[in-house]
């Protein structure tokens, strides 16, 4: 494939939507074209992630190992889709095994090259970070929809009014002990000034145990970051209720609808009493679309959160698949 053809293809990739031609040309130079034979295993779940793929032609199948040494197909990727980015972003193992359903050609992007694309503090890198957040949010929504289908029945979570009431009744308070915050792994590698800017961009609030802060299907009023305590994210269908995530210290929730404009995909309930950093919708939107050091912290926090959430959501997926 010639460079102009590659650039033309990259312009059709949703992840790269809106990138200018120079950025795509830079990317084209570092991509490596791979041909994958039908039924060839590209990588196995649990293996170290060394590259992500942009599918040009063909189809890849992603499958999950479930209890009993069995696998279930979770999804397929076709032209323009990407696979493997989660393991590249957090340095962990691949979350699923990927196999070619038919002969497939794909561009491979290595871990170091992806990191180099995301690292600069320039508009292109900020744009790519937002695109990654949107892609991961879409993946997260797909996973949750798949889970909800497995559960069957109609959504049966608490009404949106419960979340509105909990938001209105939040007990605002002063910031947490900075000695504690500095020791949280979530914040270790941020520039101290930018981190301080992030930690002072919202308000702190206490919330008792058992309060619904987000209702599935309703708009998000704020993005929250747990400082103390824990908030569980659940899906409820009929009489069945499964936890799909637990936001303990340093973990964010409530951002999905603020990233892509959709409704909240889950219900969030405080499992323990909690101290939360609250970034209301407008404040979050300003930071998310900003291009300064504080915006960088926000984008990093959301990206890490999405990657952790995608991994976490596979746990009930595996258990449900095993029970079907």
């Amino acid at each position, binding site marked *: 494939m010639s460079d102009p053809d590659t650039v033309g293809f990259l312009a059709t990739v949703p992840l790269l939507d809106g990138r200018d031609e120079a950025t795509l040309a830079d990317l084209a130079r570092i991509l490596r074209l791979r041909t994958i034979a039908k039924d060839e295993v590209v990588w196995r779940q649990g293996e170290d992630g060394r590259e992500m793929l942009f599918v040009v032609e063909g189809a890849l199948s992603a499958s999950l190992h479930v*209890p009993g*040494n069995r696998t279930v197909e979770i999804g397929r990727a076709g032209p323009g889709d990407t696979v493997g980015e989660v393991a590249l972003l957090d340095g962990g193992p691949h979350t699923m*095994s990927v196999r070619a359903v038919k002969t497939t050609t794909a561009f491979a992007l290595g871990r170091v090259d992806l990191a180099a694309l995301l690292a600069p503090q320039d508009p292109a890198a900020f744009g790519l970070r937002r695109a990654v957040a949107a892609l991961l949010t879409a993946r997260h929504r797909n996973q949750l929809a798949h889970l909800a289908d497995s559960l069957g029945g109609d959504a049966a979570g608490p009404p949106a009014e419960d979340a509105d009431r909990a938001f209105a009744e939040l007990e605002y308070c002063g910031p947490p002990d900075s000695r504690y915050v500095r020791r949280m792994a979530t914040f270790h590698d941020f520039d101290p000034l930018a981190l301080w800017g992030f930690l002072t961009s919202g308000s702190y609030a206490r919330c008792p145990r058992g309060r619904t802060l987000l209702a599935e299907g309703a708009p998000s009023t704020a993005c929250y970051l747990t400082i103390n305590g*824990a908030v569980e994210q659940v899906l409820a269908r009929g009489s069945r209720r499964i*936890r799909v995530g637990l936001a*303990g210290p340093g973990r964010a929730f409530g951002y999905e609808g603020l990233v892509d404009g959709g409704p909240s995909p889950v219900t969030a309930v405080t*499992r323990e009493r909690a101290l939360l950093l609250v970034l209301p919708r407008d404040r979050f939107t300003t930071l998310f679309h900003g291009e300064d050091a504080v915006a960088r912290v926000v984008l990093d926090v959301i990206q890490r959160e999405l990657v952790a959430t995608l991994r976490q959501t596979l746990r009930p997926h595996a258990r449900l698949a095993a029970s079907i």
Partner: protein
Amino acid sequence: MCRILAYLGDPLPVHHLLFDTDNSLVRQSYRPRMMNTFLNLAGFGMKAWDPASLRPDEPFSYRATTLPSFDRNLRFLSAKVAPTCVVAHVRGVTYSDEAVVGETNLHPFHFPGTRVVLAHNGHLREFRRMRYALVEHIRPELAQRIEGTTDSEWIYALVLSQLADPFGMPDTRELADATAAALRILRSLRVERGIDTSSPVNLCVSTGRSLVSTRFSFDYGWYPPEDEMLETDLPYVSLWYAIGGEYARRDGGWEMTDGDPARSLIIASEPLTVDHPGWFEVPEYSMLTAELSPAGLEFETRDLDV
């Protein structure tokens, strides 16, 4: 903080669980992968039930404060024993002059004459403030058997005290109910005393026929600002399981083979292999129960809201 392991299923050489895999329990004593800045060098303990042995309801017992990786006796014995149930533990303590390393503090705990053993991964913060309030919830004949200085042994005595007959053989449901009841008592005493800091209580409780395990924490996410265990406790204390036919070496690696119905279950603080696609994280705030029956292994997970 410690690492725990439990096995229930077809006879399995203990060596496979303790030494053979690349993240075996013994390796987790000196190179845990899911603990921050903490090692588990304060001793090893194990209870193992072998139906072919003399008095099969009584477990084989081994414990030593020496490092298990250099313990030749343990290596030789574990290569010869193939039990159907194992509970094993490597103990970690804080690096402080208050920590007591001694045989009486080694898990799994097992009072003479009882059928239940217990191992604990976690710690009750501010335990000294509630220790003696526990006495009224523990049967005197059990309280007098407490020999060590750990919160875990008190939890063991508390669980036993919730059984109708602490010296009998409880079924799986009774064991699970007793474990949940003990956690409720701990919760209530903590509330009475205003103790509201994170206290993980991952337990493995077993009779050799039944296995009950919890992945649980009181007040998860709340810590004193300068707590020495903070980095270790910020993530919810890990617990994993693998379930299937048999745990065996395949193609150079260790895996749980397919099994329908399942015949073998391993529960461990960390997967026993670095590459672990066949391992599944136990949900937070949950209890696992398992029981061996002629039809296979009966296994259940449920939310633990105490």
